[in-house]
């Protein structure tokens, strides 16, 4: 076993060596511009791009023509929201999203609000899921788009996407989903799930960074999006710019591998994740899993270790790469807004650790991680005045704290 151990696969995944092999020729040998229509260099590049388009479409139940290549999921999300807002401005000016979305959605919505779009940010229930009745009530005759993520990047909960899509369809509203964490990990099907627009990216499914895609439905309904960059009119006019052929080849190869290996891989991820969880829960008291485990990514475990601050825990497990929802680990010095949205209290957000398992983690690594985390939590609880007070039977929620 090699140290440090990488267990932060929601942030990014290592590239699968098979993906890298597939990409290699497209840097030096097959370097043509896929838009060059009159020589073999261009045709070869175009052929590679079209193969990738099919691989991506196959993974998500779409047709190749519905795939628009982008520079990553942030661009895909921006293009979806801004492109729909602009294209459907005559129909309405209202977008519905959720409080636990990624910043690429929330900040795009904030920007749209400045230009006159009204945005409803649905709260989530304590289990992390959107309340469907609340969604139904939020839709008005001005609503043009519902954007709810498929699976959450922090707490791993999987939203009832098919139901959300059905509700949107019934009301004649488009449905976009950010499927960055879900695609390639769990079955995603744009037809069954009633999805009209969907964002994915390469580097969360063992492919390259800097290459993503947007699924844009062509039939029932035919979705139109206003391009956000002017240029050569690539990608059916929705996204100009010379195609990143090696990246696109990598994204396609990564999707094909995910599709072929998903049944086996998702079983293995769930086994490792459950083992990690049961080890932690059997050795430590007062640990709380964040987000429902009933509708959950197989590779995610987000867990709060009460009375221990997340950054100090990360410091003690410095040969393991994971993330925390603690304020101290964020650029804004605010604890995770996703965990806050669950309403569990800021203290549990400060105490949270996100374990993101991936294709290359082993059972030996999981055993090591569990052992190390248990040791450090115990050590830090010896240091914690809160743990001491809790053991004395003091109700911490009733204490008058000298907040600063």
């Amino acid at each position, binding site marked *: 076993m090699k140290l440090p151990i990488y267990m932060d696969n929601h942030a990014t995944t290592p590239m699968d060596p098979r993906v890298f092999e597939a990409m290699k020729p497209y840097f030096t040998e097959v370097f043509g511009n896929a838009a060059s229509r009159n020589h073999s260099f261009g045709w070869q590049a175009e052929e590679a791009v079209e193969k990738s388009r099919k691989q991506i479409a196959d993974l998500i139940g779409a047709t190749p023509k519905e795939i628009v290549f982008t520079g990553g999921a942030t661009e895909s999300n921006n293009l979806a929201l801004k492109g729909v807002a602009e294209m459907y401005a005559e129909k309405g000016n209202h977008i519905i999203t959720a409080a636990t979305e990624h910043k690429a959605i929330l900040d795009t919505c904030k920007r749209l609000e400045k230009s006159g779009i009204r945005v409803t940010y649905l709260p989530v229930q304590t289990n992390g899921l959107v309340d469907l009745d609340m969604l139904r009530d939020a839709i008005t005759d001005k609503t043009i788009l519902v954007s709810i993520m498929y699976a959450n990047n922090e707490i791993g909960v999987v939203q009832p996407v098919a139901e959300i899509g059905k509700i949107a369809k019934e009301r004649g509203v488009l449905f976009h989903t950010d499927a960055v964490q879900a695609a390639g990990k769990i079955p995603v099907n744009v037809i069954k799930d009633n999805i009209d627009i969907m964002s994915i990216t390469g580097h969360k499914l063992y492919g390259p960074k800097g290459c993503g895609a947007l699924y844009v439905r062509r039939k029932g309904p035919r979705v139109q999006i206003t391009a956000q960059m002017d240029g050569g009119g690539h990608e059916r006019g929705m996204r100009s710019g010379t195609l990143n052929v090696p990246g696109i080849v990598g994204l396609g190869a990564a999707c094909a591998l995910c599709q072929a290996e998903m049944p086996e891989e998702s079983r293995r991820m769930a086994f490792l994740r459950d083992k990690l969880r049961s080890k932690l829960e059997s050795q430590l008291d007062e640990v709380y899993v964040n987000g429902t485990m009933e509708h959950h990514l197989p590779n995610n475990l987000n867990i709060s270790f009460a009375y221990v*601050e997340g950054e*100090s825990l990360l410091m003690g497990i410095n040969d393991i790469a994971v993330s925390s929802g603690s*304020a101290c680990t964020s650029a804004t010095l605010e604890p995770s807004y996703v965990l806050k949205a669950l309403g569990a209290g800021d203290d549990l957000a400060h105490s949270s650790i996100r374990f993101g398992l991936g294709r290359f983690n082993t059972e030996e690594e999981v055993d090591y991680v569990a052992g190390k985390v248990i040791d450090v939590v115990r050590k830090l609880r010896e240091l914690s*005045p809160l743990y001491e007070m809790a053991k004395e039977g003091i109700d911490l929620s009733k204490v008058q*704290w000298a907040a*600063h």
Partner: protein
Amino acid sequence: MAYSNKVLDHYNNPRNVGSMDKSDPNVGTGMVGAPECGDVMKLQVKVNPETGIIEDAKFKTFGCGSAIASSSLATEWLYGKTVDEALQIKNTDIVSELSLPPVKIHCSVLAEDAIKAAITDYKQKSALHKTESVLVS
């Protein structure tokens, strides 16, 4: 973020971890911070009532590594000081000793506040204790 060697040392080998009897009239207890802010420090001093010198200091901290290091360092510095000398410890001394980056300055402020709270508590208790002694005699 990279931690300084001194922060790492205090984190890995925290000094004077523990708790003293709060009801002891010679013990002053300071508790500052709040769980929802992500840091709580409890700092205690035991003062010799004859000399006014701090003879023991203990801490427990819920917080990041820099908060743990700041309070651990504070207990080291308190040993052998008079209560008035202890009040002279400034957060900036802690910042420079531990090479804390700007985002961690609040940890040192919290440690200074904890020292002040512990000393204030001791002074209040000893004043009360003296009054009680006078009343009894």
